[in-house]
Structure formats: C-alpha cells, structure tokens
C-alpha cells in the first residue's frame, strides 16, 4: 500500500467493483459508498485523500453531497473529482465553481485517471 486512501461514490455496483480492483492493483486503499448518506459518514470516518463522486444518484445527487462535504470542516479539504455521464460544459463549470478539483466524463480511460490521481494527490500537503 502506498498509504493513500481513495473513496469512490457511485450507485452502480459494477463501477465500485471496478474501481476497487483497479485501484488496489495500483496499491491504493479503496473506500466505497453506494449512496450520498453513506459517503458523508465514511468520508467523516475514513478521511480519504481523494473522493470520486458520481453525480447521477437516486435520493441525494452528487451536487448535494459535494455541498455537504464542503460545509463540514472535517471533510472540506478533501479534494473531490466529479464523475458523470453528462458531458455538458455547464456541468463542468458548475463542478469547478462548487469546489470540485476535476470533472471526469464517463466512460473514462483508466490510464488517464491514474495520471489525474497522481496529479491531485501528489499536490496534496501532508495533513
């Protein structure tokens, strides 16, 4: 393990499974959440180094989760990257405006994703 913890939030189990397998291969510790509520609790408990957040989820959508993460002092400083099937520019802009560090469109290239992770976490200051 390289000591970095990544949280993935998505209501699709297949996606969570993929992330788990893929990121573990790259020596990252993985925390999964399949709903917004679960995400908020686990983010608070686990304090991951990076959160991938799906937008289109039932009950609480990604935007709401993002807002609540940023409101909570404990989780506000964790970098969040939005994940979405929506590719419209205005969604990308909204993501950045509301505090996300990146906006990744589905389907994404895992290679590219790895580069992004390194870029984001690599920049992080030690807590």
């Amino acid at each position: 393990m390289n000591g970095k913890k990544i949280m993935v939030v998505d209501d699709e189990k297949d996606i969570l499974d993929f992330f788990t397998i893929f990121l573990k291969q790259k020596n990252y510790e993985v925390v999964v959440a399949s709903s917004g509520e679960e995400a908020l609790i686990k983010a608070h408990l686990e304090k991951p180094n990076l959160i991938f957040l799906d937008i289109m989820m039932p009950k609480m959508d990604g935007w709401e989760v993002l807002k609540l993460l940023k409101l909570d002092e404990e989780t506000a400083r964790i970098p969040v990257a939005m994940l979405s099937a929506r590719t419209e520019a205005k969604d990308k802009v909204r993501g950045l405006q509301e505090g996300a560090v990146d906006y990744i469109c589905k389907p994404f290239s895992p290679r590219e994703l790895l580069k992004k992770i390194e870029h984001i976490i690599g920049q992080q200051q030690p807590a």
Partner: protein
Amino acid sequence: MANLRFSAPRSIKAKYAVAFSALVTFFLILSMSVQVTLQRGELRREIDISSLSYALLARKPICEAYEIYYNSGYYKFREIMLDHMKMNPDLLHVSVIDVNGWQLFDSYELNEGFESFRREQRRAVEDSEVLKRVRSLDSSKRVVRASDGAEMLEIVAPYVEEWGHHKYSVKYLFSYASLQSKINSLFLQAALYSLAAIIAAVLLAYYLSSKITKPLVELSGMSQDIARGNYGRTIFISTGDEVEGLAKSFNKMSTDLARNIGELEESRQKLIRANEELKQLDRLKSDILANVSHELRTPLTTIRGYTESMADGLLGVITTEQEKGLRVMERSLNRLSSTIGQLLEFSRLQSGKINLDMRTFDILLLARLILNNLREEFEMRQIYVDLDVAEDLPLVRADEEKIAQVIENLVTNSVKFTPPGGKIEVSAREGAEGVTVSIRDNGVGIPEKELPHIFDHFHQVDGTSTRKYGGLGLGLAIVKQLLDAHGIMIAVASKEGIGSQFSFTLPAEREQDVEAQLKHIPAT
C-alpha cells in the same frame, strides 16, 4: 373656503345656480328700480294733490279763526289749530302771513308758548321769494329741504275775503315722510320677493342641473368601476334626452369590452397552459436525454475500464494474442463512445434552444488543446498536422466550448477522409471581419453534387452497405448548428481527389472593444 370665492364655479349645479341667481337678481333689481321710481312719482303726486287740496280748503277756516280768536280767545284758536295739525299728520308747519310780510301766526308757537311768541311780536318774512308768493293771488308750491336733508312741500295759499280783499296768505309745510315710509315698505317688499325669487331660482337650478348631473355621475362611477375590472356593467337611464343616448352607447361599449376582454383572457389562459405544457415537455426531454446518456455511458465505463486494465496487464499476465484482441476492443469502444457522444449531442441540440456562453479567448490555445487531444489518432493514422496561427492574433469572442466542438468535428472529419500520409492544416488569419479559421486537408475531397448536402443530418457521402467510411453523418450537422447559433456562416471548398477546406470567421475582440466593454462596467 376663501379661495372658492375667487375661482370659477366647477360643478354644473353651481354654474346653473350662479347663472340663474344672477339673471333673477338682475331682473329683480331692474324691475325694482323701475317700480320704485314710478311709485315714488305717483306717491309724491298724491301727497302733493292732497296737501294742496287741504291747503286750499283749510285757508278760509284758519284765517277766519285767526281773525276771530287770535287776539281775544287765543286758547280757542290754539285748539282749532292743533286740531288742524292733528287732522293732517303730514302738516309740519303752518303760518299766516299778511301781504306786508309780517308773520301773524306761526305754528311753532303752539309748542313754545303763546307768551314767548307774543313777546317777540310780529316777525318779518325775510325770504323775498316767499314774500312774492304771499302777495300773489295764486296759490303756489315748491319743494324745500330741511337742515337734515328731508324734503318738504311748501304751499302758499292766499286768503281772499268775500269782497275780494286779500289780507293774508297761509303758508304750509308738508312733509314727505309718509312718502319715505311707503317707499321703504316698497323696498322691503321688493327685497322679500327678490329673496324668495333667488331661493326659488337656486332651487330650480339645482333641480334642473341634478337631472343632468345625476346620470352623468352614475355614468362616471360606472366607468371607474369598469376601469377597475368589472367589465360588462351597464347603466339604466330613461331621461329621454341626449344623456339617455350617451348611456345607451356606454352600455354597448361596456358589453363589447366585457366580451373582448373575456375572449382575450381565454386566449391568454390557453397560451399559458400551452406554454406550461411546452415547458413540461422540455423538462421531460432533458430528463430522458440525461437518462439515456447515463444508461449508455455507465456500461461503457466498466467495459472500458476492464478492457484497458487488462490490456495494460493490470489484471494478470496476458498473451500477445489477448493483448491484440483487447486493443481492438479499446478502439471499438472509442468509436462507440464517440458515436454515442455525437448522437446525444445532436439530440440535445435538437430538443432545446442553444444558449451561448460568450467568452473572449485565444483561438491559438484552443486549437493547440484540441489537436493535442487527437494526437494519438493522428499518429495511428499517420497524418501530419500543421497548426498555422500567428502569435499576435487578436482574441476572439464566442462560446468557447462550442467552437472547440466545431474545430474538433471538422478536424475529425478531415482525418476520416484523409488517407495515411496525408496532411491537415489548421490555420487562423486576421481579416476585415474578424479571425478566419480554416481546416484544410489533402484527402479525397467531396463530389460536387454532394456539396450542398454535406451539412444535412445523417448525411453520408457513401450510404451503401459497402461503406468505406463509418460514422453517423452528424459531425458536420452539429458544426453547422453550433455556428448557426452564433450567426456565423461556414464556407466549404472542395475538389475530388485534391482535398477540402472548411472555414468560418469569428468576431475579433480588439483592445478598443475590451476598453469599450470595460467602460460599461458599473462602478461599485
């Protein structure tokens, strides 16, 4: 109330009241004056006549009484004279004067006392005028004025004895006091009549004018009511005159208005409902699109994820054959992804109006970014790409994301139709109208008869089952839609076997434009 006195009357009532009263007053004053003048003349004449006849009748008894009693039985004389004075209340003064001018008797002595007068003996008449009249054999009269200004009638009547001897005359002074009181009572009468007449006139004026104003006020109130929104109110007036005519027209107008507004309101409601429905449909479309997008892209995510990971050996060692297969899968996935992307984008553009997010940006940077993203594709297809943009090119103003899409689609299109070893050139030049962006290739070109149709939806140059070039035929359609939204035209030049060139012109943002824009920023 003070200022009311000086302003012209405003209401019809007041106008009528003032007019009527003025008229009545004028005529009353006129008739009063005429009346009084006539009456006064009459009355005076009456007094004159009665005084004169009295004077003439009384001279004999007075003079005889004087002769008999004055010196011997004064009190008897006094009594007789007093009776005379009482009999004629207008009689102020009597005096007996002899033809030599001596005043023998003066009625003042009846008051003052016989003694004092007698002591003064006879007084002489100084007025020569009177003397003359006393001496005359004719009776005469004249009007004299007392010290207080009151008018009196002075009559001098000669007394001629039976045998023609004229020894004395009697001078009388009659007052016009009764005249005055009669005149005064006339005035009073006239004043009372005037008052009554004026009151009657004002009442009449009020009554007549209210006949007019009442329906008018009603009409006015009704109009205001309609103005407040109670359309269709009608008024009932049956005065039989022009006001009734007005009321009828008014009613017609009111009902017409009510009907028209009713119709308008209905249409408005219909429009509102239709608008709501449209909005709902719009929302529905957006939701469906988002849902479709999600459903298509989510499975693709896992497929791509595993394919790439496996190809990179992350999930275990793989054979060369397996790797080849996986790479093919990757490429297919990309193609599928791109097609889905185009379809969804096209759908999105079709279903909603395009909102432009206008920005000022550097076309050079944008072009570089796009070409960089497509680098792998170029390498794989062995196509040489050249970016020819001057360094000092002005910034352009447009929706950056959409122009990015435009350039990407045009380049992708060129890539599709350019064989390996070919060249694509992306250039941007400053012109009179702005910055002209061109994408040129030396690929297969477009047949002349296809040129007018290349921007049509789903258009394929070769639509047969043995298609050489894949794709949906949406890339150029999307380009056209996005540029149309900006009001920008796309130009295409092409020759089969030689190549194609697509170009469009973006408005340039010059420094003065920026400055001008800065000037419009409100001070904070």
